[in-house]
């Protein structure tokens, strides 16, 4: 997962200034994107359309928890495979 949340050990902070900022920004973008994809996907999979009420049902809540967990797992698996590392095992 280092490609997702990695941070280089930056020694020369001053010189790397814009680089650090760029890295932090792309990390933020990646996390935001992941979050938004999970919200979208798990809503589609867990919350069926005719809305009986405005609360999450017990079943929907459990579904969401599992969905988020599985999405993360899938994300790590695919990431591991793509970088050829040991994370995909």
């Amino acid at each position, binding site marked *: *997962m280092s490609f997702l949340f990695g941070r280089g050990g*930056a020694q020369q902070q001053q010189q790397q200034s814009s680089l650090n900022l760029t890295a932090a920004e792309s990390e*933020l*973008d990646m996390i935001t994107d992941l979050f938004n994809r999970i919200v979208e996907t798990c809503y589609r999979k867990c919350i069926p*359309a005719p809305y009986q009420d405005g*609360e999450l049902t017990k079943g929907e809540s459990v579904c969401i928890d599992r969905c988020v967990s599985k999405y993360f797992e899938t994300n790590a698996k695919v990431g591991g495979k793509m970088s050829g590392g040991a994370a995909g095992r």
Partner: protein
Amino acid sequence: MDLSNLNAVERAQMEQLIEQKQMKDFLRMYAGLVDRCFNDCVNDFTSSKLTSKEETCVTRCTDKFLKHSERVGQRFAEQNAQLQQGGQGR
């Protein structure tokens, strides 16, 4: 997010950036929610006002989505923290 390897100026810039992105993300979510609830709830065009049934549906749809998003946020934070911890060891 770990901002510890940024200096004070960078951190201020980053915070500003985060604020801008949050605003943008909020607007994106708003637009997405309108689209979702409109598509799920409004299919009858024999009147130009929302029927009471459609209105109820839109309210429920909005409530449900916001609660959904909040719950995903909680689980997301947990998973992300776990991941950060696991990654620290290597």
